[in-house]
């Protein structure tokens, strides 16, 4: 085997390993406010590469990799939490619930869920079409008329097994399909977590902080406190973002394109991004031949909004991986975009390292 073949084989093995980690990450239940299991998994895998791991009062992980000269600090941020449901009460033999984070109610019917720490299987059923009156057939079913069925005999059994306030996650195993695509729940933002878990393995001149944050989906809560602890000079958020290049959507509304490469944000609902930092990242992508795209619409938001306004203001950028059907049990991502984004984050860190910072000129 020549060295080129050997390298290709090594690269393939490394990529399979990264996908396997992503699979495990997405299959963990970690609804906002209930991230413990994701936190445990991440800590366990990054422990050997970090100089220090701190867990704060909300459950954010602040993983520290000391730099060679520690002249400045770079913070990477990805959130561990996912959208899900929470049990609010009981209706006969069934569970009532509300959503945690933004969920399109239309996607909830006819889904399997995993209830609580003991992962009790449940289903969200619907009144059969045969029994719906004509007006009901064309009306959407609201979340207040949906229930989770775990097969309980009565309310008493439910109260014992599923106390009010129990968190519920979608039950969805990762599937690789089509041409290099992946279906999974929680790609937003376990995909970012996977990239951070990779970055913490490298050593730079500067101090690197990888923050795995909590409660992004309920109002960018975790990142509000990590930035104060880290006091970074530069921050980069790594996100799973919306991708609306689907049938029925006009091209001008395609936020990002699947297989269009790493998505860079110039503005969204929470942040007007630092122009120089964005240009710096674009240049890095271009000089390294890494596929990228600009996120074309200004909707949505992420932890950048918090980070930018922390302390006396922090320079922040977002690098995102496009995910179709985001916030559903069947989010779809392209492996190609995942690897482009990972490569870009790595290349940006290298360039910051080489330049001793981000060049303003």
């Amino acid at each position, binding site marked *: 085997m020549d060295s080129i073949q050997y390298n290709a084989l090594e690269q393939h093995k490394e990529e399979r390993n990264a996908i396997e980690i992503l699979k495990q990450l997405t299959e963990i239940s970690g609804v906002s406010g209930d991230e413990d299991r994701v936190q445990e998994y991440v800590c366990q895998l990054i422990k050997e590469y970090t100089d220090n791991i701190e867990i704060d009062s909300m459950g954010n992980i602040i993983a520290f990799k000391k730099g060679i000269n520690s002249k400045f600090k770079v913070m990477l941020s990805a959130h561990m939490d996912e959208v899900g449901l929470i049990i609010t009460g009981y209706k006969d033999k069934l569970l009532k619930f509300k959503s945690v984070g933004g969920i399109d109610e239309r996607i909830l019917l006819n889904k399997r869920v995993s209830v609580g720490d003991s992962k009790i299987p449940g289903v969200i059923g619907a009144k059969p079409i045969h029994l719906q009156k004509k007006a009901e057939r064309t009306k959407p079913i609201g979340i207040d008329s949906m229930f989770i069925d775990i097969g309980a005999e009565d309310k008493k059994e439910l109260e014992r097994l599923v106390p009010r306030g129990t968190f519920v996650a979608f039950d969805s195993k990762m599937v690789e399909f089509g041409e290099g695509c992946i279906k999974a729940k929680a790609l937003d933002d376990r995909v970012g977590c996977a990239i951070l878990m990779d970055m913490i393995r490298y050593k730079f001149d500067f101090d690197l902080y990888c923050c795995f944050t909590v409660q992004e989906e309920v109002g960018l809560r975790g990142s509000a406190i990590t930035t104060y602890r880290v006091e970074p000079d530069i921050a980069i958020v790594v996100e799973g973002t919306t991708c609306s290049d689907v049938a029925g959507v006009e091209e001008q509304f395609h936020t990002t394109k699947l297989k269009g490469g790493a998505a860079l944000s110039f503005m969204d609902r929470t942040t007007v991004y630092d122009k120089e930092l964005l240009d710096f990242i674009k240049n890095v992508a271009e000089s390294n031949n890494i596929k990228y795209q600009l996120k074309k619409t200004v909707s949505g938001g992420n932890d950048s909004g918090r980070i930018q306004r922390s302390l006396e203001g922090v320079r922040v950028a977002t690098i995102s991986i496009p995910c179709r059907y985001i916030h559903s049990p069947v989010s*779809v991502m392209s492996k190609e975009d995942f690897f482009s984004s990972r490569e870009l984050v790595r290349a940006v860190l290298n360039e910051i390292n080489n330049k001793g910072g981000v060049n303003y000129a």
Partner: protein
Amino acid sequence: MDIIKLLEQLSMQNGVSGFEKQLSEFIASEFRQHCDEVQVDHFYNVIGLKRGYSTNPKKIMITAHYDEIGLIVTSIDEQGFVKFSNIGGIDSKILMAQEVIVHGSEELFGIIGAKPPHLLDESQAGIAVKLEDMCIDLGMSVESVKAKISIGDTITFKAYPTELKNSLYSSKSLDNRSGVLTLIMILEQLKGINHRDDVYIIATVQEEVGLRGAEMVAYSTKPDLAIVIDVCYGDTPEVSEDEAFSLGKGVALGVGPNLHKGYTNKAKQLAEELGIGIHIDVNPASTGTEAWAVQISRTGIPTVLFSNPLRYMHTMVETLSIKDIKATARLSVELIKAGVIN
């Protein structure tokens, strides 16, 4: 017999109405383990015969349909998204973010998607998503999609069988693979029983598109008594307890003009004597089951209807109780044993 395993196998197989050929082989092989004769007709109805001891036997026919609801490819757009229509009654509201298998030149995994909620205009608020506004995403280029699938290919739902608490079981196609399981359980129990009449155990096709398989086999079998095994509604919020029954409490016995009064009363009496739980499933006209077609075949066939209560009918999370399937099988066997036909 491992009931759960067999139900899982039956539910995970695919056989949309009109496309049952592949599944007919699996069912025929199960029937062959217990029957004296098994035939598969031109439309893939699977007909098993278990002979009785009488030299002049009567014929009891027991049917359960094995087709399932599904989708069919109607077009492929310029980006490679697949448009579809339904086969059988499907509530479009349950299709969003659903996992499917498109049966092209190979089996392709796909996701049902639609316009994201923030891009819907106000005129669409308060209106349920329509079938024509959804499409299947195969994660492939339009060229690859067109090379692998054609208009008219069938689409089935991806099955994720799940055991719930208290012997409840959830999966796709339990309407009516649970009936097919009941048939196999009846056959197994008949093994040790010396019954007088010939018993025709039949898994039928195309029920979901108009009770068609049952119409064919009722004519070809010409039975003296027919037992139809299907599902009925399980208890569901907003649905009256008169027409939707608790799970795990027994067989739902159909009553009404569609069903034979004498034999139905006989079944009821047997259930009461033997302590088999029953619900009375009142049907003022059509039962919506094969009983409707069978009753008026040839010169008329006395028909009874045994149903397994099922929640969330025609979804991918149909839910029923294993206990009820056992009760339905037992009551059917008892009715055969009783030699009720004069």
